[in-house]
């Protein structure tokens, strides 16, 4: 009996010893895992602490879990004021209005990729918010705030410089224009035919320079993002008509026949900046004329595409070389064949044109074959009729 009991006890003790060893092993592993986790955490925190971008990590409900020092600085709050609180309560201030609106969709945060917002105090941020898939918790949201104040400032200075330079250049150009014109008008005494011829050529060169300055000013306006002025409801037919009318002289000079085809029924109105949209039509028409042979034909077609107007201009000109078609809308680009053909042109026309069309939520594209001709297309959405207008 005694030996049996002592046998059982011995067995139990043995089992307990084994359990103890196993437990110690587990504890040891846990301790190792804990150390690794702490190391990882420290690493992550060290990265966060030293990042120049602001980082916020939120849980599904928008409660802030982690905030980096830069993010604290952007929000102008201490860590204990941020962590544990709802993100949207933190950005309730008027100056964060734009940021809040950007991130808030109904009651939840939406994914955002590199959007710019101004948050007061002359601070501009580029915001991204990303949903993280986490192993243990539901889902977390990472918000990255990148300071772009300086970039914006440099960009602004650059466009301002071009704008001021262009305006400054206009004064001496006006003086040259006025002087030559007055000499041509005989205001400074009679001139000979030869002198007249030279002065006329100088006048044309100077006009080109004035045109170039205008192009440059337009480009800076595009880059400042304040290009479109007042948009009014108008028929696209009218804009095309006016531009064609004002180009009569140019067409006659090059002996080019222009054919215009508009839909029988008046199309719905488009809402556009009239001056800029005229510039689009004018640029495309001038290009077609410039790069067509004398006596050639150009056709303009307007079509009603239901929700938008389609403008087509078909020429039988020199075309755009295949290998250069991709770059046709880039600033200062000019095709090799047209550089050889016609020395003038700033390479800004199509860049400006594309920007204007896209600012009106339209599309622009083309088809072209060298020495056969080019067709440019652009669309402008019609003004949607509201219910009571129907």
């Amino acid at each position, binding site marked *: 009996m005694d030996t049996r009991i002592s046998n059982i006890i011995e067995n139990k003790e043995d089992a307990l010893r084994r359990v103890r060893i196993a437990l110690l092993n587990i504890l040891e592993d846990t301790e190792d895992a804990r150390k690794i986790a702490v190391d990882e955490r420290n690493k992550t925190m060290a990265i966060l602490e030293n990042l120049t971008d602001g980082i916020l990590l939120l849980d599904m409900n928008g409660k802030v879990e982690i905030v980096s020092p830069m993010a604290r600085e952007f929000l102008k709050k201490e860590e204990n004021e941020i962590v544990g609180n709802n993100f949207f309560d933190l950005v309730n201030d008027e100056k964060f209005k734009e940021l809040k609106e950007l991130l808030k969709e109904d009651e939840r945060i939406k994914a955002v990729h590199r959007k710019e917002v101004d948050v007061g105090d002359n601070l501009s941020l580029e915001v991204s918010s990303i949903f993280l898939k986490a192993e243990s918790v539901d889902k977390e949201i990472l918000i990255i705030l990148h300071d772009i104040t300086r970039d914006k400032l440099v960009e602004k200075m650059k466009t301002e410089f071009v704008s001021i330079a262009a*305006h400054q250049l*206009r*004064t001496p150009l*006006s003086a040259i224009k*006025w*002087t030559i014109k*007055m000499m041509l008008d005989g*205001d400074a005494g009679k001139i000979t035919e030869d002198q007249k011829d030279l002065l006329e050529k100088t006048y044309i060169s100077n006009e080109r320079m*004035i045109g170039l300055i205008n192009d440059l000013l337009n480009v800076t306006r595009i880059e400042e993002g304040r290009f479109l002025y007042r948009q009014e409801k108008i028929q696209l037919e009218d804009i095309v008509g006016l531009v064609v009318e004002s180009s009569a002289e140019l067409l006659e000079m090059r002996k080019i026949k222009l054919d215009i085809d508009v839909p029988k029924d008046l199309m719905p109105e488009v809402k556009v900046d009239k001056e800029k949209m005229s510039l689009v039509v004018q640029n495309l028409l001038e290009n077609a004329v410039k790069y067509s042979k004398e006596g050639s034909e150009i056709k303009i077609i307007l079509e009603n595409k239901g929700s938008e107007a389609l403008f087509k201009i078909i020429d039988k000109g020199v075309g755009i070389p295949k290998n250069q078609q991709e770059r046709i809308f880039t600033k200062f680009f000019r095709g090799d064949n047209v550089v050889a053909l016609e020395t003038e042109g700033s390479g800004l026309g199509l860049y400006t044109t594309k920007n204007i069309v896209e600012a009106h939520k339209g599309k622009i594209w083309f088809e072209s074959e060298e020495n056969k001709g080019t067709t440019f297309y652009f669309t402008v959405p019609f003004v949607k009729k509201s219910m009571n207008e129907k």
Partner: protein
Amino acid sequence: MFKKILLVEDDKFLRELMSKKLLSLGYEVSTAPDGETGIEMIKSEKPEVVLLDLILPGINGFDVLEKAKKDPETANIPVVILSNLGQSEDIERGLKLGAKDFLVKAHFTPQEIVNKLKTILE
């Protein structure tokens, strides 16, 4: 009949060119090289029309225009802006302040400017 025109323009050469053109066509011309003088001369000379530049040393053209239009003594004198600004905002601002017309220097020849003045003087 000699019509009196006041030219407010800071660039000496442009001022000379425009004066020459106007004088040759039989107008009477007075000139002001800056905004201050411009305002004073609008009051003292009572010209029949003012050709006004916008970017001027001291008081700019917009302010000159505003002052001239606020003063009942000079409010009826037509002002034509002749400037190298010419963005839609500038044009709208000038016309809102009461300018008769807005001409971009680089886009008009002296004769074309005179033609505009003629239509206003008629």
